[in-house]
């Protein structure tokens, strides 16, 4: 009995659920926190990259002789300075960092220079002579799939690609169950629509940056802004031919990532320049480089067909999704096809997906990669069906919602999930009943994300004064050091301010998967709680030793060891402070550690409600009111959970209304800057209201579910549905920029 209670805790928390200040807060409000570009080291060089101005070209020759003669120049590197990789994915990632034989998109790195100053490096890079043989290019999904499209690389397609596709089509997936054709026959109404979404960028405010140094003994040091320093090491070491443990990677503070910093761009290049020059090398991307050469999302072209009965039951649902993920094969399409219908309990469902290569930068993850653009299409059609059948769109979703026991559209059967509770919360919220004015519309959408578990390591050290130092291996992108400290304090039964959590480098803590998949509070949380339990076990042993009783006769309560009952002996509680103070006399330093390999992350659902007003004269959409409902399992630090819900919603608002990669007919990116690639600013928005639901995840000791990604999924359809209702015309393409909305209004006559 006691054991069960100990393993799962869903109430009676003292620290979990409160809102303490984050441990890295003071550094961040005083300007002292060090981000990627904030480190300078003695005798450092600066790197600059020469990038292809062509979307597609064969690199005939590279002549760096003039550049090497320039003042201050110490080294030039090209693809020839990196090791050939055996695995496709590794070679593709390397080729994306530095073009090998072919420049595959506008902005593709071709060579790099290290010089005494950044200016010297840039001037020298401009003197590198590259002879290109220009090749035909293609940047749009629909064009790249045409039979006569320019081909990026042949021979990269998986064997299951259906006949009739060209060699740009690399991946094909199918998910679903039942018989959709039979299901459509049972429908009273079928809606079939074709949608497009533009590629967007994660838009982190801190450009990619690093400082690398290398010795002739094969030892390297890398300081870098990244979501995963083990990932950086595991790419860079083989690219440079180093042994993994000889490359120590230290993560800086990270100025936003959202998935965009889950791969490498500059890092191997900086290491190669450091190796060749024998000096430390700092590299920082300009904003233009961030847009042209770091990962945007996929863009998509999707057909959706859904059948519904008069009373709102979905009889069959089918989606054909086509994603372009840039110049290399890309598996994001599978995530799109898996998530498209995940919110529904369907008898007949089919999702088919194709990935196609284009002359664009390699796609990088962006918050729930693949899901927002897929769920946008499905939620738009569900809304249109509800509207045409005169049904309440929220009731229709409740009627078809996935629940415990539902066989999901992507295969597994759901266990405890919170979608129905989340929809009910939206239905009962005053927002759902608030009156709307002229030209105003309300939109709703469900959202879903899998969440991941994986590997993370935690060491927890009890200092001689009884305070606790936690070292973990996951860069903190949204306040996770606070939630980790809270979980350690909760488990140990000590105050929050007695714990300090830091992120260790690759050589000071065990392997940890990248900070992605909404996995940190979940997995590092598990590792922290178990490391704390490990330390408690040691401390109970020390108390038992002092008391001369059996270790099993000691319990841990409120930060102190106590005898388990009168039979164990009469001893006053021995506090953690006392145990720590005497540690060197009772067996040495006290620590706990845990290396998690976790499963059971627990899927997450969200529902967003939005009110908009569309100006019929200009097509401009104003967001009037926005409410996010999301199941957090258990919110460790509710303020940062709200922050994830609000931040994701606003990124989704940008995606829905403004943001897009625009390529010209010349294959060049037209808007590589924040002026023309417009992310939401404060004056675009209202407050973003949040409702946190807590349906405990059985896979976590405190019930935590990841919360970071789900929130970007619903805004696309929620806003599209609101705009469509406000303007009384269905919008099927993102972003819904004013000219596009105005054209739709004009077209309806």
């Amino acid at each position: 009995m006691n054991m069960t209670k100990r393993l799962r805790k869903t109430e009676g928390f003292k620290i979990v659920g409160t809102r303490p200040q984050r441990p890295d807060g003071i550094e961040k409000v005083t300007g002292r926190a060090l981000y990627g570009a904030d480190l300078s080291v003695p005798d450092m060089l600066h790197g600059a990259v020469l990038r292809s101005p062509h979307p597609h070209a064969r690199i005939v020759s590279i002549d760096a002789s003039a550049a090497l003669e320039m003042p201050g120049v110490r080294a030039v590197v090209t693809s020839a300075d990196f090791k050939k990789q055996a695995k496709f994915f590794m070679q593709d990632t390397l080729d994306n960092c530095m073009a090998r034989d072919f420049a595959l998109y506008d902005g593709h790195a071709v060579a790099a220079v290290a010089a005494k100053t950044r200016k010297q490096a840039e001037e020298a890079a401009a003197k590198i002579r590259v002879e290109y043989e220009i090749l035909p290019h293609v940047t749009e999904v629909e064009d790249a799939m045409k039979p006569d499209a320019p081909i990026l690389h042949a021979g990269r397609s998986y064997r299951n690609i259906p006949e009739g596709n060209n060699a740009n089509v690399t991946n094909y997936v199918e998910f679903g169950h039942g018989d959709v054709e039979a299901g459509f026959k049972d429908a009273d109404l079928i809606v079939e629509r074709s949608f497009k979404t533009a590629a967007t960028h994660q838009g982190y405010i801190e450009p990619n940056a690093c400082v690398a140094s290398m010795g002739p003994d094969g030892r390297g040091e890398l300081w870098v802004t990244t979501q995963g320093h083990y990932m950086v090491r595991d790419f860079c070491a083989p690219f440079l031919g180093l042994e993994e443990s000889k490359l120590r990677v230290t993560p800086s503070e990270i100025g936003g990532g959202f998935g965009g910093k889950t791969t490498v761009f500059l890092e191997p290049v900086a290491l190669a320049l450091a190796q060749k020059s024998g000096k430390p090398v700092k590299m920082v991307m300009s904003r233009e480089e961030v847009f042209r050469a770091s990962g945007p999302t996929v863009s998509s072209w999707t057909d959706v067909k859904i059948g519904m009965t008069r009373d709102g039951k979905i009889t069959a649902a089918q989606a054909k999704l086509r994603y372009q993920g840039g110049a290399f094969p890309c598996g994001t399409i599978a995530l799109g096809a898996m998530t498209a219908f995940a919110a529904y309990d369907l008898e007949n469902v089919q999702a088919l997906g194709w990935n196609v290569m284009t002359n664009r930068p390699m796609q990088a993850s962006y918050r729930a990669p693949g899901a927002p653009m897929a769920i946008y299409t499905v939620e738009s059609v569900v809304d249109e069906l509800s509207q045409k059948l005169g049904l309440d769109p929220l009731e229709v979703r409740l009627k078809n919602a996935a629940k415990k026991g539902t066989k999901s559209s992507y295969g597994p059967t759901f266990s405890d999930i919170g979608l129905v509770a989340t929809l009910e919360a939206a239905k009962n919220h005053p927002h759902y009943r608030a009156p709307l004015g002229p030209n105003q519309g309300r939109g709703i959408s469900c959202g879903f994300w899998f969440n991941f578990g994986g590997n993370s390591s935690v060491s927890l050290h009890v200092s001689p004064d009884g305070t606790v130092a936690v070292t973990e291996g996951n860069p903190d992108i949204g306040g996770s050091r606070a939630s980790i400290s809270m979980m350690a304090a909760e488990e140990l039964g000590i105050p929050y301010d007695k714990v300090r959590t830091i992120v260790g480098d690759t050589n000071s803590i065990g392997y940890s998967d990248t900070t992605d998949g909404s996995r940190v509070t979940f997995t590092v949380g598990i590792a922290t709680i178990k490391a704390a339990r490990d330390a408690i076990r040691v401390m109970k042993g020390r108390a038992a030793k002092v008391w001369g009783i059996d270790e099993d006769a000691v319990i841990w309560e409120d930060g102190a060891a106590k005898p388990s009952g009168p039979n164990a002996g009469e001893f006053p509680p021995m506090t953690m402070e006392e145990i720590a103070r005497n540690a060197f006399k009772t067996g040495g330093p006290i620590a706990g550690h845990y290396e998690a390999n976790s499963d059971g992350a627990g899927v997450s659902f969200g529902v967003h409600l939005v009110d908009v007003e569309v100006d019929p004269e200009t097509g401009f959409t104003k967001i009037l009111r926005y409410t996010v409902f999301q199941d957090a399992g258990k919110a460790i630090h509710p303020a940062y959970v709200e922050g994830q819900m609000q931040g994701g919603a606003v990124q989704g608002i940008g995606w829905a209304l403004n943001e897009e990669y625009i390529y010209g007919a010349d294959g060049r990116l037209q808007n590589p800057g924040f002026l023309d690639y417009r992310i939401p600013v404060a004056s675009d928005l209202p407050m973003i209201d949040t409702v946190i639901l807590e349906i405990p995840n059985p896979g976590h000791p405190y019930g935590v579910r990841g919360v970071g990604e789900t929130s970007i999924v619903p805004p696309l359809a929620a806003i599209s549905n609101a705009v469509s209702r406000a303007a009384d015309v269905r919008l099927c393409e993102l972003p819904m920029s004013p000219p596009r909305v105005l054209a739709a209004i004009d077209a309806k006559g």
Partner: protein
Amino acid sequence: MSKIHVTTTVNGDTVEYLCEPTETLLDVLRDRLNLTGAKEGCSTGDCGACSVELDGRLVSSCLVLAAEAGGKTVATVEGMAKGENLHILQEKILEHAALQCGVCTPGILVAAKALLAKNPDPTEEEVRFWLAGNLCRCTGYDKIIRAVLDAAAEMRGA
């Protein structure tokens, strides 16, 4: 090309530096004066991460030449706290959890301070429009706006 000798005041201290004619105030703050609180997010004046005050006026330091700062006063995020005491805006940003990655925070703080010096009792809309030049990609601005309004109220009361 010879360097320019500049004497200016940064956070109350007289400082001197030599700079290239093309160097920006942001470059000098970060690379010559080791004040890395102001960040370079774009170098085109679109993101506000490099916000500083120049003679009491809010500017993007990436759009100011370092030579222009001669004889003027520069205030950066590093000058906001006095010894152990944080500025009320800094306290409120922490209290409201109005930062996630924190890279925009120095710019937001400098900009908000400049707003409250001009307008101690701003409306929500006035705060939103004043901060429209400071991009934050993490928070959706909600908690930042609340923190600034809360700080304004407390500063008026103090």
